[in-house]
């Protein structure tokens, strides 16, 4: 027996609802803890750069490694499990991009980490440019990812990029503190928002 018009309408509405719910669940997946993890890493690293710049030569490497292994672990234990053929390529892709950026930065203009406060003063403007640049790369990835996952990531990427530029241009003396609060803070708050409201 063929369904009535009302039954067909209800079935179509149910299809739309379940499809949207599934997409949201997949997008939410490990996003919240990943945003909180990387927001915390930004926060600690940028805050340390502001107040203890001599420690940053090695601390960035340690924090990036923590972030990389932490991300793998969070994706692995995510409750929403979607199997994507070749998903490991995403990790390799981002690792290669990061490696490429660091390698060429050092090949073209080797970074000699300052050993004294005086050296830091002359090195800081260069480091500020490098830091601003590196912070915009993952935000660009958010914007691109948002094209496929959802508008929220696009707005987040654009907002944090704008905040980075504002800090770079108008808050140079406290740029790293600015990054810690606006950049790291935005990521942490976004993670908390997703965890609480994306249901």
């Amino acid at each position, binding site marked *: 027996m063929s369904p009535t018009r009302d039954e067909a309408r209800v079935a179509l509405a149910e299809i739309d609802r379940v499809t949207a719910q599934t997409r949201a669940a997949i997008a939410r997946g490990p996003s919240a803890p990943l945003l909180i993890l990387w927001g915390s890493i930004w926060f600690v690293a940028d805050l340390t750069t502001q107040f203890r710049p001599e420690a940053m030569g090695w601390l960035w490497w340690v924090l990036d490694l923590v972030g990389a292994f932490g991300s793998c672990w969070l994706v692995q234990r995510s409750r929403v499990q979607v*199997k994507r053929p070749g998903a490991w390529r995403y990790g390799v892709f981002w690792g290669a991009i990061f490696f490429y950026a660091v390698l060429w930065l050092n090949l073209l203009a080797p970074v000699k980490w300052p050993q004294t406060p005086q050296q830091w003063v002359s090195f800081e403007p260069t480091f500020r440019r490098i830091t601003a640049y590196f912070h915009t790369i993952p935000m660009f990835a958010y914007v691109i990812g948002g094209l496929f996952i959802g508008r929220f990531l696009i707005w987040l990427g654009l907002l944090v990029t704008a905040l980075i530029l504002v800090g770079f241009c108008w808050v140079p003396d406290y740029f790293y503190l600015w990054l810690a609060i606006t950049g790291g803070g935005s990521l942490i708050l976004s993670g908390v928002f997703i965890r609480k409201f994306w249901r």
Partner: protein
Amino acid sequence: MPELDKIIHAPARLRIMSALMALAASEQLDFRTLSEMLDLTDGNLGAHLQTLEEAGYLKLEKSFVNRKPRTYVRATARGRARFEEHVEALKKICGV
């Protein structure tokens, strides 16, 4: 002319196929995620998945993750085509 599919039209199976259609063709959703999202018991979901698999609309793949068994589900090309045809038939009834 698009036709309604009796197998897909059952409410639980319609929801299962809708969830799988939200994925890319090469992606698979695991059994536990599907049961939690659709609020179906394991037995109920298993029975509907078997019906859909027998019709060739989806494929089940069993594997081990951290030595624990895990079942992944994916809509086949045939299942996707039949689902889209079913949706078209529903739209036609609604006059959309």
